């Protein structure tokens, strides 16, 4: 990717002194231009990562100070802990469900919004509306909707004489509730991206398909989706990574419960470190989370790298 840089400054140094002077100013500029960002990243990204790694090999006291070196035992006890493993499993279920549902619904919204109809702009705007909703607001809306006594779902099932589901207190339905809320929050962003990709599909492809008499549904699966598959993959990975980092909705809606059913990885880190005061365990979990996210980010990079060259 670097090869694409303009070549106005070149390395083949003539032996003249002036040349050296010229270079120096470029490096000088680099220090000024890059310095602040570099310092911030070192202080708040690189250093903490190393510190987290360091702490994961120790026990910590109430104030988060490392006290006793324990080697890998934090990792061993974590990986063998059934509760951590079930958290991990829950997270995977959550993350997969969220990213698949988000993309499927995003495609549905985008395809529907990609018709030329009167007033379609209004619909497009409304479809993207959840982008403007922050975590806590979404949490409040959904908390109300899922409330077992006054919530809409409860009232609906009562009206239909169905058993009232205790959305946020039953382990299975709590997960479903969190997934629904998260998907809803992601929808606006996903819609915008997929819609943008749809709009860049050349109209002539559809015209050609229409002339041959291919149905709209076939066009969707044989033309539209292959054409935007790159974008779909991108959105999927981004959603996946973001889903791994879910925190706010869980904190406000279930606090990780019931029975740890929604105690996803990040919430666990928070609980272990900032509620139970066990910073070493929180650090160990952080490292594992980092490894998982790094893998998906690498996949994303691979994809990005491909796109960049176009």
């Amino acid at each position, binding site marked *: 990717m670097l090869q694409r840089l303009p070549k106005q400054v070149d390395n083949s140094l003539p032996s003249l002194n002036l040349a050296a002077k010229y270079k120096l100013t470029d490096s000088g500029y680099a220090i000024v231009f890059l310095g602040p960002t570099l310092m911030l990243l070192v202080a708040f990204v690189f250093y903490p990562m190393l510190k987290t790694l360091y702490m994961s090999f120790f026990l910590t006291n109430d104030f988060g100070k490392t006290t006793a070196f324990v080697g890998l035992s934090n990792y061993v006890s974590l990986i063998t802990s059934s509760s951590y493993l079930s958290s991990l499993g829950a997270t995977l279920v959550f993350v997969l469900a969220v990213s698949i549902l988000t993309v499927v619904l995003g495609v549905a919204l985008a395809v529907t919004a990609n018709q030329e109809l009167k007033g379609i702009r209004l619909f497009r705007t409304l479809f993207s509306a959840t982008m403007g909703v922050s975590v806590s607001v979404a949490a*409040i809306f959904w908390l109300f909707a899922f409330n077992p006594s006054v919530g809409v779902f409860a009232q609906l099932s009562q009206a239909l004489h169905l058993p009232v589901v205790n959305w946020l207190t039953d382990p299975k339905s709590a997960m479903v509730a969190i997934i629904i809320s998260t998907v809803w929050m992601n929808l606006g962003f996903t819609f915008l991206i997929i819609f943008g990709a749809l709009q860049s599909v050349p109209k002539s492809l559809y015209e050609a398909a229409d002339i041959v008499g291919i149905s709209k549904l076939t066009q969707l699966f044989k033309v539209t989706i292959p054409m935007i598959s790159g974008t779909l993959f991108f959105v999927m990975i981004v959603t996946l990574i973001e889903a791994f980092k879910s925190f706010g909705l869980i904190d406000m809606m279930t606090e990780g419960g019931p029975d740890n059913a929604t105690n996803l990885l990040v919430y666990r880190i928070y609980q272990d470190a900032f509620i139970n005061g066990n910073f070493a365990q929180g650090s160990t979990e952080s490292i594992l989370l980092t490894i998982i996210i790094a893998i998906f980010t690498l996949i994303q990079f691979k994809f990005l790298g491909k796109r960049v060259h176009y």
Partner: protein
Amino acid sequence: MQLVTNDHVSKPSSARRLKKIGQYAFLIVLMLIVVSPFLLGFWTSFLPTSQISKGALWGKLSLANYWAAFTTTPILRYLFNSIVIASLTTVAQVVFCSMSAYAFVFLKFKGRKFLFYAFLATMMLPFEAEVIPNFMTVKSMGLLNHFAVMVVPFMATAFGTFMLRQSFLQIPKELKEAADIEGLNHWQFYYRITLPYSRISIVTLAAYSFLTSWNQYLWPMLTTFSDNFRPVQDGLRQLQSSETFNNWGMIQASACIVVIPTLIVLFIGQHYFKAGLNEGSVK
């Protein structure tokens, strides 16, 4: 979808109308799915809590909940805090990220390649996994419970740098050459050419960082302890958890107060966002 119109011409009008009704019906169903949580929240924010807690979704509409939110909760203070924090973060991020992106595109220096990959690598490290040492860092810096604690760690991001770098690479190299001939130094080229040339990406990054900062939840929850600094996300959390009474009307009103500004920003800036997001995210 030009052909849809062509179809219309050739088909009888009743079938055409039927198809149109179908299309609209589908649109409206989808819209309701997306919008109903809003509508529900918005509607209940006007209802008296006594009605809501009975499970009724009707009653005398009034602004009483809003009045209560404004007068009995620090919701306005939370909003103010969030605006301050998000604005400062946005400005800092645009400045620092554009500067470092500039360095990666227009400056040749030793270790550039290495640094760039190091930057990229930071995108693999989730902030959520680094809160523990970061908390300790800001604590030792004496930043706890200040605006600074929510701004300083986010003043520069690898993502922003990467995004702007991609955008700066689109600047024709002739512009830089022309500027070299005019005798512009790097500062001048950065400030007078690069920034205005890439303003769509800059605006996109600004919007992105504003929203990201606005949506911060975990970090302010750990680092703010007073309503004077608490941003709106954690403010709402406080309100929700301190209302043992389930004062749903007022909570919904507070949520609406919080969501309306961002919705307005979103609707106004939608065009920009669309272009920018696609540009920024896919490329």
